[in-house]
């Protein structure tokens, strides 16, 4: 397989041209299949889940984009959609759900709270689910409109179409928790979780 990778890099040259084209064809077929049949695992914890339901319902209907079946079991899901704020008490739960999903898998962080903690800059709330699981698409909004989530899904399609079966660099979603039980270095988590916007005017008391 390593040899195939090397041939791809010099695909402009004649002996490998057909092979590279063949690889592109396989990538196109696989990625189109994956992108157009994403099965979402809804992880709805708050008001974003209401918008998620609206996106799934007939008016917006993300089944048009291949999300026909919502997988309420992580074992049959491709994309984890975290819709809503995530308290620390739920952090091990979403991590276990993520670990239970088979490869390949993607994560959409829907809404301000899932992406950054949002207005909940307090003792109980995870400041962005990217401190727990790797995130592919962040959808801003409080909550995002269904159009916003659909746009996020289309961005994820775009990302999936750019992947290659022949790229053997380790996928970042295969990174397990380290020996401390963390996904990122502690200083990076502290940096991600720092207050921003209006919360910089709130100080630790006591």
């Amino acid at each position, binding site marked *: 397989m390593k040899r195939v990778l090397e041939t791809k890099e010099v695909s402009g040259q004649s002996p490998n041209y057909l092979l590279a084209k063949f690889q592109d064809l396989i990538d196109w077929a696989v990625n189109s299949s994956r992108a157009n049949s994403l099965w979402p695992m809804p992880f709805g914890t708050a008001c974003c889940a209401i918008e998620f339901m609206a996106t799934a319902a007939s008016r917006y209907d993300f089944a048009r984009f291949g999300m026909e079946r919502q997988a309420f079991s992580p074992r049959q899901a491709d994309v984890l959609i975290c819709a809503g704020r995530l308290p*620390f*008490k739920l*952090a*091990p*739960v979403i*991590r*276990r759900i993520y670990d239970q999903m088979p490869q390949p898998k993607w994560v959409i962080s829907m809404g301000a709270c899932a992406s950054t903690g949002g207005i909940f*800059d*307090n*003792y*109980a709330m*995870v*400041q962005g689910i990217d*401190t*727990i699981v790797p995130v592919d698409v962040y959808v801003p909004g409080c909550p995002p409109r269904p159009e916003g989530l659909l746009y996020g899904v289309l961005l994820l399609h775009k990302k999936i179409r750019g992947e290659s079966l022949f790229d053997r660099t380790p996928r970042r979603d295969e990174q397990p*928790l380290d020996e*401390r*039980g*963390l*996904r990122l270095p*502690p*200083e990076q*988590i*502290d940096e*991600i*979780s720092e*207050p921003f916007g209006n919360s910089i005017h*709130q*100080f*630790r*008391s*006591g």
Partner: protein
Amino acid sequence: MNPSAEALRATFGGAIGRAVESCGDTIVYVDRAALLDVMAWLRDTPGQQYDYLVDVTAVEYRDRERPLELVYNLRSLERRTDLRVKVELDPRGDLAIDSVVALWRGADWLEREVYDMFGVTFRGHPDLRRILMWETYAEGYPLRKDFPLRGRFSRAEQVRQALNANPEAHYSMEELSIAEAYDELPPDMRERLRRGERDKIPNSE
């Protein structure tokens, strides 16, 4: 003013503090030691019949001189009357008080919430442990005024503790829907439940 306030003063005398009326509700301040007697009297005496404990909560004020107040909202379904009973505690002192679970079974989770958020211990409570935060939560009592808004630990430490928590350990075996089927669970799941911090597993040795 609710006539129960006067009746309380006639019965318990010095154990009853001031009674005030606020927004149409009567608030009676009760001495901490007499709480259980007062509550039993309010529930069982004909003419009082406060048979429904609506809520138990607590208030700590920003003014450090003011005591921490424990609030009991009572309602008589029979007489359609409300009464609010308050107990003042010293936030820097011993935050312990008698539990009223023996009088109203519904006080169980309400008192657990007050314990979880304010650190008030209820003597005689059958199962006093945290209810909103997880049981291994080590940062203190979040609704106290000396508790920092974002918690005492760094965010990385909070994430680390959260990710290392055992999700099943938040519940006692009695609360899990699988409790009845414990004997039929696969051994590894049984072992995982056994290792949880709860340490209350029926049918174990």
